[in-house]
């Protein structure tokens, strides 16, 4: 599997990086870390490129390289990449321009297989979409944004599972809310949920929410299947059937001390665009990390 972790700054990306790496480790996934810098006006692309190349003559890093270097050092210090290769290190001034708006940091030795460090410039959704497509990414991990449109666009247009790291506190003890229903992506979500739960030693609350008091047979079947799967996986869990509005109920139960895992919506993209979807609304309104499995 391939994971993509998007980081923005040293100050705000540490929790995203930590959570992302722990999840990636649980999946034994290869990781690419990407920094997306601001879009450069088309009137200035060549001029900015020329100025940035000139900086290299002065041994000055272009914007974003310092953040990638910090991320790299963080991975080494926390043993996310092999310490035997530690000395082979980060060579920030060896950027390989792989595309007009994409550079790759050259890492020597074994580290090049363990982690990819990418510097991109432009519209963040476009850049993440391109990177996901180019590297065939399975899960994109990103910190929460205050912009409503950002979460919408991530879930609507990025062709991978999305893990939004929102309000994560490493000192807090987390549990997991795993949304279970009869949607096609539920089984995949349960499998992902198990991996994450194992990585963090979390207790899973497999939650089925019905908007009527009568639970459909399909919901009951899905819940029973999840119970069997979780038991076989040896994960501590509970099975719960709740009645109420989906978004409010799941967010109420999740609070700020759960990680939400749910499948993506199977509604038509057009319907999702105009009326939204459950995963989108959950991501917007929740106060904790949420993994939307596609």
């Amino acid at each position: 599997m391939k994971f993509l972790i998007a980081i923005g700054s040293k100050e705000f990306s540490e929790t995203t990086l930590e959570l992302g790496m722990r999840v990636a480790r649980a999946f034994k996934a290869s990781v690419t870390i990407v920094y997306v810098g601001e879009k450069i006006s088309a009137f200035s692309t060549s001029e900015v490129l020329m100025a940035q190349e000139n900086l290299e003559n002065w041994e000055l890093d272009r914007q974003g390289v310092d953040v990638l270097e910090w991320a790299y050092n963080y991975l080494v210090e926390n043993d996310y990449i092999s310490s035997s290769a530690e000395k082979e290190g980060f060579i920030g001034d060896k950027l390989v321009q792989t595309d007009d708006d994409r550079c790759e940091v050259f890492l020597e030795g074994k580290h090049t297989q363990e982690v990819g460090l990418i510097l991109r410039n432009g519209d963040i959704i476009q850049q993440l979409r391109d990177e996901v497509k180019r590297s065939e990414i399975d899960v994109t991990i990103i910190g929460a944004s205050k912009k409503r449109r950002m979460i919408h666009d991530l879930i609507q247009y990025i062709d991978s599972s999305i893990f939004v790291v929102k309000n994560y506190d490493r000192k807090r003890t987390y549990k997991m809310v795993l949304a279970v229903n009869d949607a096609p992506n539920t089984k995949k979500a349960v499998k992902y949920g198990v991996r994450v739960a194992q990585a963090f030693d979390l207790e899973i609350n497999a939650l089925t929410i019905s908007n009527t008091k009568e639970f459909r047979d399909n919901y009951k079947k899905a819940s029973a299947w999840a119970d069997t799967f979780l038991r076989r996986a040896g994960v501590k869990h509970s099975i719960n059937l709740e009645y109420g509005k989906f978004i409010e109920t799941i967010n109420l139960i999740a609070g700020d001390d759960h990680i939400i895992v749910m499948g993506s919506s199977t509604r038509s993209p057009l319907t999702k665009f105009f009326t939204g979807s459950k995963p989108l609304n959950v991501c917007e309104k929740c106060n904790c990390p949420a993994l939307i499995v596609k």
Partner: protein
Amino acid sequence: MLGLSNQALSNLLYWVTRKRWLIFAFAISLFLFYVPSPETLSPEGHRTLIIVVIAIILIVGEVIPLPAVAILILILEVILGIDTPNGVANSFMSDAVFFIMGSLMLAVAIVSQGLDKRLALGIIKMTGNKTWRIVFGFVSISAILSSFIGEHTVAAMMLPVALTLVRNTSTDQKVVHRLATLLLFSIAYGCAMGSIGTPSGGGRNVIMIGYFSEFGLGNISYLDWIKYAYPMLLLEIPIAVLILWMTFKPNQTILDSAVRKLKVNVTKAGKMTGNQVMAILIFVAVFLGWVFLSPYLGLGIIALIGVFLYLSFGLIEWKDINRNTNWGVIILFGAAISLGIQMKETGAAEWVANQSISIMSMLVDDIGFMRWFISVFLTGLLTNILSNAATVAVLGPVVLDMGGNPIILGLATSIASAFAYLTIVASPTCMIIHSSGLVKSSDYLKAGWKLFIMSMVLLFIISNFYWPYLS
């Protein structure tokens, strides 16, 4: 849905949301096409204005590549019957386009010589280690150099000097934020102010000179332009330093250790190489050519001679020029100039000028002030969201058709297009300093609005009380 798979539909939706400005431009052009032409505007003029509207929307929105916008302008000029294919081709290529092409190539050639370390040493020798003197040096050198060699060339050379000083002061960005902002804006605003000084300071100046000739208003020589514009440049420097200092006053008033480290760094570069000497000599020759030979050869051809010499003496490789020259911008400016010429030929420029004056006359009685205000204020605003050369290419014909003294209005428009202080996208220099990651977008407004107003007032005084004596 429509026989499309969910993936295809998702891709389509993505395209629509990203290209909404393109769709808006298409819709508005269709609407304007079917609106009857005003009585005082020819059908060709009407159609030309539709292209102007489309071009502005697409340039501001940046939804399609700039060369695509340029190509669309040329296609529409022919398809909408504004001119013949040969007529459009003739208006597309001019000395101004040669100049823009040549100056962008010269910039690549000059930056690649590594002269920035000499420049750094020169500045530091002059200014010493006091921060305010360094800021004064940065603004002055950036302004004076960019009046001759193009602002982004100077910004690319000055950027590492400023960043080295900042890094040598502290690696903690919080500690040096104000210092970094101050030094970087000294470069960006110094370059913007300097670009008005001579015709070679910016492509827009050459575009305006081209329009003077096209409109039969006579030729402005290189030295004539300096007489008009340089006093304003020199007056702006100390005022800009004061504004920048008051806005971003740093915690560090002396950069003793940072300056010493910079000196050590640049002295490692050793003595000036033969190539560097040759590069300077060629540029001096180009400059002398602009001053003395431009009436005969044109500014653009002289710039291209410089490029030819750099290439012939092996001072730069063609692949480097090819890689670092913004060809899209060159094509776009060619198309914008072509559109400007069509605006004049079809009477669209005159119609817009008359409409602007009649609207403004409801607010202000003084027609002279009104003309000045439209040309300068509108240009100043547009240049901050469009591009300074594109602004002059589109507004130039309108301004020259507004009546009054067209030379003064034309020069004022060209100079106002350098007031690109307010936004990141206003000019390549603003973008270059932003790419360092040390200045925030809100910083542009903090000092920018003060400089904008100062420049407007100064231009008003100079154009009303100094230029009339030169005409």
